[in-house]
């Protein structure tokens, strides 16, 4: 993996050569081939899909559906199991609003965790309120992890739905999904997996994992904004009803009746985000080409270096020393993360301060907010050095001015 070459693929570095970008968990930088794919759409097509029978639209429709096949292949799913959405949040909502609201009833139990991003806990909180089902939280270990044993402790014969993140966007922990999914299915329950923070770093084989639903976003994996994917098992999607009705999702329309298209189209009304779909394909091709094993290894090397450095600085608390990915959550003792982050910004170190759309994690850690640094494929050892230098100087500064 030639990082210098990889960095050339990210034009933001051309504009800001000194930028130390460590906010990938919020959004990754966008790779040049993705931007090229988007430009190719607007410069050489810029027409609609599915609807035209002239050559330009026909060709584009083929490219567009090839992108769906690329996503399907990437997940080891079938073409019709891939639904394009606005983003991971929208995809996760589709499961809750289409499946959850219709299938659950009072007495049923939904298992979630405090590690969930708001986009995976709030839809199920809503479903619980609307259907009378009970929302149950997996107890986390002291370290903040979901374990198979803790999962077993809440799994009952009433469990009908499980909604868990694959990788936490604050703690970076990977959930042991495979045994959890097997247990879930033994109870006849279904599982929705939030892969927004895992797919950018590792391939997922949905057949092997045997998850029922899985969602992710393009903008976290070098791809465009405005595109997400819901994978769902065919037989489940077949039975589910759409949450939106309109053009392109139906066969016959009568004044008072409609017959729906088959999956995936019945879930995709209206003109799709064509440019973003083509960009997502380019992002997947890009990551495949580099190789995700190499990416994860690289991230982890940088993260280990960073953790080592942080340990040698006093007055810093790291919340996830055993993180499984490139994500580090930490704070300066006595300094609000919002204060700290301004310091880093002055050094062109882009970090995140806040609750990261995961307030239940903040409550678990008993802090109002944290700093978060993410290392990804385009980061270098230099980035780690710059990061650590800025941290050290900031720590001195805040101590000196009396924090």
């Amino acid at each position: 993996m030639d990082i210098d070459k990889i960095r050339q693929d990210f034009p933001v570095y051309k504009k800001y050569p000194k930028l130390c970008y460590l906010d990938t968990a919020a959004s990754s930088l966008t790779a040049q081939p993705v931007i090229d794919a988007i430009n190719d759409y607007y410069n050489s097509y810029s027409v609609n899909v599915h609807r035209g029978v002239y050559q330009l639209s026909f060709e584009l429709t083929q490219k567009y559906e090839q992108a769906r096949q690329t996503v399907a292949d990437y997940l080891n799913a079938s073409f019709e199991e891939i639904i394009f959405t606005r983003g991971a949040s929208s995809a996760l909502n589709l499961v809750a609003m289409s499946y959850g609201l219709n299938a659950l009833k009072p007495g049923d139990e939904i298992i979630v965790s405090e590690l969930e991003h708001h986009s995976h806990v709030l839809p199920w909180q809503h479903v619980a309120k609307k259907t009378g089902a009970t929302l149950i939280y997996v107890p986390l270990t002291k370290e903040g992890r979901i374990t198979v044993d803790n999962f077993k402790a809440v799994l009952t014969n009433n469990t009908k739905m499980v909604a868990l993140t694959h990788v936490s966007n604050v703690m970076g922990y990977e959930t042991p999904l495979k045994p959890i999914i097997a247990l879930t299915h033994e109870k006849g329950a279904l599982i929705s997996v939030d892969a927004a923070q895992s797919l950018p770093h590792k391939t997922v084989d949905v057949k092997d994992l045997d998850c029922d639903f899985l969602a992710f976003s393009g903008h976290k994996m070098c791809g465009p904004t405005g595109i997400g994917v819901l994978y769902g098992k065919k037989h489940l999607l077949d039975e589910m009803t759409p949450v939106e009705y309109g053009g392109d999702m139906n066969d016959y329309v009568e004044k008072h009746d409609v017959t729906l298209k088959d999956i995936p189209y019945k879930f995709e009304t209206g003109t799709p985000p064509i440019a973003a779909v083509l960009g997502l394909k380019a992002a997947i091709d890009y990551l495949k080409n580099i190789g995700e094993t190499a990416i994860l290894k690289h991230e982890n090397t940088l993260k280990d270096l960073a953790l080592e450095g942080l340990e040698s600085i006093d007055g810093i608390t790291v919340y996830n020393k055993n993180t499984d990915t490139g994500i580090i959550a930490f704070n300066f003792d006595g300094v609000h993360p919002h204060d700290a982050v301004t310091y880093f910004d002055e050094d062109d170190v882009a970090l995140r301060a806040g609750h990261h759309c995961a307030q239940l994690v903040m409550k678990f850690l008993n802090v109002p907010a944290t700093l978060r640094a993410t290392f990804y494929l385009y980061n270098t050892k230099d980035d780690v050095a710059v990061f650590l230098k800025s941290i050290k100087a900031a720590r001195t500064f805040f101590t000196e001015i009396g924090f």
Partner: protein
Amino acid sequence: MRLENLYRQIIMDHYKNPRNKGLTSDPTYQSEHIKNPSCGDDITIQSKVKDGVIEDIRHDGTGCSICCSSASVLSQRLKQTTVDEALSVITAYVNMITNQPYDPSIELEDAEAYEGIKDFPARTKCATIAWKALEHTLKK
């Protein structure tokens, strides 16, 4: 280092030793709860107005140093002023922070220490949130 312009001593003093801190349950006070949860800011400003004069201001909550200290500075500066004067001080302060023209004859006192924020637009909100909350209460 630009940051020294931001974290001036007066600010740190108000952050460490906040004036008028702690809420009251006295129903003659108006309360304004400030929501900025994405920053972890959670501040309440209480004020008691009688005959056009702000008799008391209280505040409490958690947040960054700029947010918490500015609530303290605000309480100190605007206590015992008339509502009209308070509104013009608030306008001057907010304009100073957002790099817009303001009447230099208005005495900002300790609040002047926040002038440096104008170079940190990402922190404008921290420095103005308490002030805008009080403005909202006063204009009700």
